């Protein structure tokens, strides 16, 4: 019931933007998943004869400083970037949604108890929080995923809490309580499905930004570590050879932008349907 309630209306009334965004994402996901099959070359294959070579038929995005095919690397890098982006937001939702639900539903002391520490996480700028966690734990894609999840947790919790507060006063919830439905049942069956809308919108947009954060961290050398390809790392390497081989910088960056664009468009489209009054953001 829950899944249908959310998905069915979406399919029926997907706005133009969301459709474009969804299309982009679908293509990227397919590319990422099928990367081992589609990629024309081994992303890690070093080819001294093609160092800094420009784009051509067999290497549509050119080659980098080690002669590696940029296109293949981008495909494999998508796997990591998309995986981290989606994974981190899902984790953030897994923790943040219940927290927001509890805080909004019960209110009062529990609300303060939950939201105070959550809000403290908002006191640090996102990237700084991520860097702090990386300082403690060390760099790596796993840490990045965890860090981004921590950053987004309070945002999602707040959004859910906000919409729960709105839903809790609705007639059908009060009616359910009056019928003797347990508080837990109320929360899960009535409040939750109707509060998820804005959170889903936010989640979509956050996934887009997660890609950017991961890229930034990898760019700084503190995120995904070589030899795993990452769009951010590729940008860092590409910048070194900017003048001789601009394609090593342009294409990875473009890849990031397109992915983010996909998520943002989907989020915008979903917002038009789920959250026209702007509860989120």
């Amino acid at each position, binding site marked *: 019931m829950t899944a249908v309630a959310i998905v069915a209306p979406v399919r029926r009334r997907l706005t133009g933007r969301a459709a474009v965004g969804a299309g982009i994402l679908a293509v990227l996901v397919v590319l990422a998943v099928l990367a081992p099959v589609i990629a024309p070359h081994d992303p890690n294959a070093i080819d001294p004869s093609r160092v800094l070579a420009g784009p051509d038929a067999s290497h549509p995005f050119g080659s980098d400083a080690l002669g590696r095919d940029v296109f293949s690397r981008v495909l494999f890098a998508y796997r990591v970037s998309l995986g981290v982006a989606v994974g981190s937001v899902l984790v953030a939702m897994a923790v943040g949604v219940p927290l927001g639900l509890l805080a909004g539903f019960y209110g009062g002391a529990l609300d303060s108890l939950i939201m105070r520490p959550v809000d403290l996480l908002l*006191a640090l700028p996102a990237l700084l929080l991520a*860097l702090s966690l990386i*300082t403690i734990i060390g760099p790596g894609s796993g840490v990045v995923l965890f860090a981004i999840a921590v950053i987004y947790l309070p945002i999602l919790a707040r959004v859910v809490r906000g919409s729960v507060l709105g839903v809790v006063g609705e007639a059908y919830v009060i009616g359910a309580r009056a019928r003797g439905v347990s508080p837990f049942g109320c929360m899960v069956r009535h409040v939750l499905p109707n509060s998820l809308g804005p959170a889903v919108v936010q989640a979509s947009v956050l996934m887009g930004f997660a890609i950017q954060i991961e890229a*930034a961290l990898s760019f700084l050398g503190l995120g995904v570590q070589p030899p795993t390809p990452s769009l951010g790392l590729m940008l860092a390497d590409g910048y070194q050879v900017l003048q001789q081989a601009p394609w090593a*910088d342009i294409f990875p*960056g473009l890849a990031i932008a397109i992915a*983010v664009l996909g998520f943002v468009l989907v989020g915008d489209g979903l917002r038009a349907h789920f959250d026209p009054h702007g509860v989120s953001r």
Partner: protein
Amino acid sequence: MRYILERILLTIPTLLAMSVFVFLLIRLVPGDPVQTMLGFRATPQNVATIRHQLHLDEPLITQYREWLSGLLHGDLGRDYVSHAPLSELLRSAIPVTLELTLLSMGLALVAGVPLGVLGAQGPGLARRLTDGFVIGGVSVPDFWLGTLLVLLFSATLVWLPPSGYTPFTADPLANLRYMILPVTTLAIGEAAYISRTTRGSMEEALGAPFVTFLRAKGLPERSIVYRHALRNASVPIVTVAGIQFGVLLGGAIVIETLFGLPGVGRLTVTAINQRNYTVVQGAVLVIATLFIVVNLLTDLLYGWLDPRISAGGER
């Protein structure tokens, strides 16, 4: 008045909580932080001395107290790798970061707000263009944009330097030359957000009931849009600007690294890479404090912009 005091007082627990977090940063690192920090310079005596200086063998509460009191006296600790006191390092780094972020935010507002106003009430074409700009600005990673700007302005047209820095006090013109690219890079992404928010809240303000009365008074349209609607729309704009300042600080970290600006951001990144924990601690503390202070200022600004907020009413 009371509103101002209230806001300031509320900031204190946040600052404290943040300080606790930063304090714990070093102490949560697995293994012996001092050993890692000193790396090959670690000798048993060094390690012992420094551990003693950092009070690492004492109970946590005492450590915190010592550290906090040191802070309040202006002593942020030392960089044990270069032997410089942190306050010195930070004193030269902070102005760079401040200049970068303030100029970027300023430029973003100057460009973004009019764009947003235009998008709210201008012709359809303007609306679609601003839409495109917003979506593009939000999607494009700012540091990639930086590299593109460098490609264009430094590598191809050799107009601007790709990296480097001179303090403003030393040579204002050179300073600006170095800052143009980094500031523009950050400002473009920021302007996208700001214009999006401006447009939304302007549309809302222009639809508010008092606008009909303003028209009934026979006020010129220009006055209605720029004096009244914008003033009422400014609260969400200021809110977003305040929140975005945090994002900007994060972005500054990356941009400083990219453009070789000796700011607190780059200091942080270098220190993390070098496992120079005390420096990381000091830099994070500074950036976080800056962020919290800006949020406070934003709060105070709202109170002035919308008198209902400072009266404790709802918006």
